């Protein structure tokens, strides 16, 4: 070796030097690729995070069985049509130890407030873990979970407004029990003109092994109602069960490929235009079309890889931003399973974008580029 660069890495060196030479273009193109990757990972992370959270909170209620009104769907909200008197009726059925009912009312966006009967809810779930404050005292008291408190910058004594009323935060509780925002059941029923009506009834049985037997008994007594074991119910919170969500994710992936295509197309197209002489030089040295195409492909791969890495890092930023600045019950999780998918999507869009510029470069007339003029 004569002190030069090893032969095989010379092409890589040229690729890196080319990218460094026009570093602003390189950084901007990689950033654009990164944004698409973040877009995909944030959407997927939000979908999975929010659904997992719903499932986890359902399990956290401590119930074994859940009863919903006739004709309702699992995801999607129905306000309270179950008569409250069923609570006592069900409590007398075999195996059943505790029943509690909730009313759920939408307060805008994807957010809801849940009305609970604190006494029976505590018996069912083992009670809230108060991080600050305590149970309801005044009629306008609201209990929030830590997540809701952080997103909405709430402390004990803070006021918050929904359902056209001002509420006072009396307790902040650990998350994971049914919902994020709780008010007394009676009050919510009144405010929503649903006195005596429930949205969901939760049932606890003496022994989880008796869940199926209890469900059979309840089904026999209430043939029209929807009766699920809590596991069955919680496991229904999947991307496939949210109408249109999977299609929406595919649309975003499609848009990402198109955006990546356009960005890399423009970036590589200008690169080829400004490098006609360099391409001519390589040709005069006997470089094949494949070699010249290969250089552009390598540049594109490096661009897409850097962009993807940046995009993955950026999802930690979007998670933080959603946690801190987006009030609502949306939860974003980091989805490493999807990192290769998002990277492949970025790669696909980028390589498609490099195709035409690469073809143009490979076909370019060397003489025109090399002549003195």
């Amino acid at each position, binding site marked *: 070796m*004569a002190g030069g*660069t090893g032969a095989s890495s010379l092409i890589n060196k040229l690729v890196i030097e080319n990218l460094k030479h026009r570093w602003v273009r390189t950084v901007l193109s990689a950033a654009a690729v990164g944004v698409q990757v973040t877009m995909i990972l944030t959407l997927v992370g939000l979908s999975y995070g929010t659904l997992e959270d719903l499932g986890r909170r359902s399990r956290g209620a401590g119930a074994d069985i859940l009863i919903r009104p006739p004709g309702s769907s699992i995801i999607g909200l129905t306000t309270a049509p179950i008569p409250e008197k069923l609570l006592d009726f069900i409590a007398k059925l075999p195996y059943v130890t505790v029943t509690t009912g909730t009313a759920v009312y939408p307060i805008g966006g994807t957010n809801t407030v849940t009305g609970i009967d604190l006494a029976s809810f505590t018996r069912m779930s083992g009670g809230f873990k108060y991080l600050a404050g305590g149970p309801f005292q005044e009629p306008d008291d609201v209990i929030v979970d830590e997540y809701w408190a952080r997103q909405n910058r709430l402390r004990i004594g803070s006021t918050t407004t929904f359902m056209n009323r001002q509420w006072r935060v009396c307790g902040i509780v650990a998350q994971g029990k049914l919902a994020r925002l709780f008010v007394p059941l009676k009050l919510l029923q009144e405010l929503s003109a649903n006195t005596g009506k429930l949205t969901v009834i939760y049932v606890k049985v003496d022994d989880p092994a008796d869940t199926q037997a209890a469900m059979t008994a309840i089904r026999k007594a209430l043939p029209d109602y929807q009766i699920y074991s809590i596991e069955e119910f919680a496991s229904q919170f999947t991307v496939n069960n949210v109408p249109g969500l999977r299609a929406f994710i595919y649309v975003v992936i499609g848009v990402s490929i198109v955006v990546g295509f356009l960005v890399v197309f423009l970036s590589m197209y200008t690169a080829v235009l400004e490098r006609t002489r360099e391409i001519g030089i390589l040709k005069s040295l006997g470089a094949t079309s494949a070699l010249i195409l290969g250089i552009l492909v390598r540049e594109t791969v490096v661009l897409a890889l850097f962009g993807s890495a940046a995009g993955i890092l950026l999802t930690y930023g979007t998670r933080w931003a959603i946690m801190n600045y987006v009030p609502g019950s949306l939860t974003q999780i980091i989805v490493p399973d999807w990192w290769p998918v998002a990277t492949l999507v970025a790669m696909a869009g980028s390589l498609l974008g490099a195709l035409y510029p690469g073809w143009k470069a490979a076909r370019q007339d060397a003489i025109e580029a090399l002549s003195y003029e």
Partner: protein
Amino acid sequence: MSESHPLIHVKGLTKVYKMGDVDVSALRGVDLTVRRGEFIAVVGPSGSGKSTLFYILGGLAAATAGNVIVDGRDLTKMTDAERTRIRRELVGFVFQRYNLLPTLSALDNIGMAQYIAGRSASSDGWFEEILDLLGVGHRLHHKPRSLSGGEQQRVAIARAIVNHPALLLADEPTGNLDTENSDNVLKLLADLNERKGQTILMITHNPEAAAYAHRIVHMRDGRIVHP
């Protein structure tokens, strides 16, 4: 190839550039024979077809008609891919504008020619010998833009000969250089020709440069003329 055969044998070579509806006849029947080891200067007015002749001899352009044999190979019937091989294996180009890759160091520019030709840095001492000839020294690790024109052109010559081409084609190699740098470059070419037997065709406008050659070929209006 037998050494007694000429390195280049061109007969009735024509070249027509098609520019839209207009045909430009750049070469109108060139005959030329070059023996191995010759150093030839090609002179003639601008537009007389000198560069075009070089592009065809070097496999950068296809001939329109005629015969072009270089080192026993008939270039006239070649595909693009075959001409690419010729550029890789048979010829080295030196241009007026140096044409080094701007993002690579001088040394890597030379290495790139080797890489493309599919040779690893040679073990025959040729690479070191070339570096000695260059006299660019430590500046080999610099990018072209921090080298003087004379240095860049010497690097370009090194790149052109690193793969032992049968033919070195230099298109106005001193056109951008001052007298002192011109002399250096011309001495380097003469040296290569004398010591290594390198066959060289050099286009030039400068009579002093042409004086370095064994033989001067005159071109005018796409033909070789005998003044």
